């Protein structure tokens, strides 16, 4: 019998970091993060982190009522993120839950946020999932752009799609800003500042401005932007038309927002999801073979394939290490 791929990875091997965001609230980001994590934890070491600092809910979707250590302990009591990650029962799933009763978490100081971002990227799990809050401000976008794969959850209705476009624009601008600082081409920063205040039209327009100012730097930035590949999940699908939405939106993003988007899959609406939430029962555990659960599992497997095929350059491992890492992963636990 073949052993499943992936168990505990060796400490030197970096795992995959995925972020689940979307701009609009209530699209199902937390549902997707929780259930992706639960499914993968059947055969992989997974950590899910509630990065919705102002209103954390991940623990609720995982059926956790009592939490000992939370993100507040990491941020204010100087514990390490690994220490705050609590294992859930006997599974391979660990949860870093947010704190509901610490005021001011939604407005985090810069140095605390940087520490959090750094330790998230250093997590020693095969897969680390970040559940990001609603909105397009820096506390959302900054967690999204550090991921190997960013997942946007949209619903088949206008507000959610509109907010997703806004989110992608905000993330792209932030990425460009960070790249400019990294490569020390600050004169282009003024261009971004001016762009933010104008009525936003197109990232293409901004890149053209850069190209006029400094063609070499513009090429460098365009190259960095190629690394950003938001993946789309359409949640709460009820009609065939809704399934098509994902592919269409991905195409629109590719053509008009200057980034490479991919469609991961569609999750059908299921009223049992709400029922499970009210009973504090994780959905994929109680309904493992429902259509929605199968859809989530398919999305998880596709994400694994995408991650294997193309790591972000910041987390690139040498080919030799990749092979060694894979051998490690294939060994049974």
């Amino acid at each position, binding site marked *: 019998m073949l052993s499943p791929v992936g168990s505990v990875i060796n400490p030197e091997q970096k795992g995959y970091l995925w972020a689940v965001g979307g701009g609009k609230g209530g699209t199902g980001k937390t549902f997707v993060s929780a259930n992706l994590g639960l499914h993968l934890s059947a055969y992989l070491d997974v950590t899910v982190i509630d990065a919705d600092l102002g209103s954390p809910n991940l623990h609720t979707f995982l059926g956790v009522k009592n939490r000992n250590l939370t993100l507040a302990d990491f941020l204010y009591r100087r514990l390490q993120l690994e220490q705050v990650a609590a294992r859930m029962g006997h599974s391979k799933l660990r949860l870093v839950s947010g704190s509901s009763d610490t005021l001011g978490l939604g407005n985090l100081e810069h140095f605390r946020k940087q520490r959090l971002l750094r330790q998230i990227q250093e997590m020693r799990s095969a897969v680390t999932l970040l559940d990001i809050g609603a909105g397009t401000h820096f506390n959302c976008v900054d967690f999204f752009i550090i991921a190997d794969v960013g997942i946007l959850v949209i619903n088949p209705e206008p507000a959610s799609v509109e907010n997703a476009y806004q989110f992608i624009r905000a993330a792209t601008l932030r990425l460009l800003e960070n790249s400019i600082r990294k490569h020390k081409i600050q004169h282009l920063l003024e261009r971004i500042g001016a762009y933010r205040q104008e009525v936003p039209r197109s990232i293409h327009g901004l890149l053209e401005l850069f190209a006029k100012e400094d063609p070499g730097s513009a090429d460098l930035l365009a190259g960095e932007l190629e690394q950003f590949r938001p993946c789309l999940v359409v949640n709460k699908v009820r009609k*065939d038309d809704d399934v*098509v939405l994902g592919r269409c939106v991905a*195409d629109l993003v590719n053509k008009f927002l200057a980034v490479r988007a991919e469609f991961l899959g569609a999750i*059908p609406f299921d009223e049992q999801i709400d029922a499970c939430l009210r009973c504090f029962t994780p959905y994929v555990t109680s309904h493992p073979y429902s259509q929605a659960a199968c859809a989530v599992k398919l999305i998880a*497997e596709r994400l*694994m394939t995408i991650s*294997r095929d193309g790591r972000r350059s910041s987390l690139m491992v040498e080919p030799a290490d990749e092979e060694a890492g894979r051998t490690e992963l294939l060994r049974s636990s």
Partner: protein
Amino acid sequence: MKKLEELNYYEVLNVEPSAAREQIEKAYLLALATFRPDWFATYSLLNEEEREKSLRRVEQAFAVLSDPARRKTYDSLLGQAPPGEAAAPASGVAESSVLPASDSAGGLLKRLGGYLRPKVRQQAEPVAKGQEPSHSNLSDGYMLSGGQYLRTIRLSRGLSLEAMADSTRINIGYLRALEEEQYDRLPSGSYLHYMLAAYAKSLKLDADWIVKDFKEKHS
């Protein structure tokens, strides 16, 4: 990432230059659906003029790529000219497309749905025209025992068909047929169920559920 005007016709329709006619038609339908009027997914991204312009570009792309002679000319043009020049239409006039652009959104999507949903052999009676797509139509894509689903799982675990054949001791041709849902190439009855179960077990999936699901869908 190039702007729409800079894309060649294959890129406009998101197809490979080697795409077959059926793939181009499917891509065209999808593009028509993307740029159709009064749709909530485009209202915040494109104004009416941009949407119309995009639709015209899609029509141009299909007009050329669906005609073998014009496609051949265009391919040789792409081979010689730099991308910017090739993006301009091969002929000045955009012909009317084979599929009428005035097709209703509903009709368009029904046809598109046929392309997008994986083909399941021995499927239930087709949905009658004008009927609401039933819940079971949506489930086609999520069929638990469906070959595509199993294949996706296998690929994401990084396992080759050879490795599967080795561990399950099942002929690799049969495994391939299973994944492609070519059930007429497979033995029927209990040996098929055995194969499914063996495949599922080697991926650590619940074999009982998968065989049960298969029996339900193919009874």
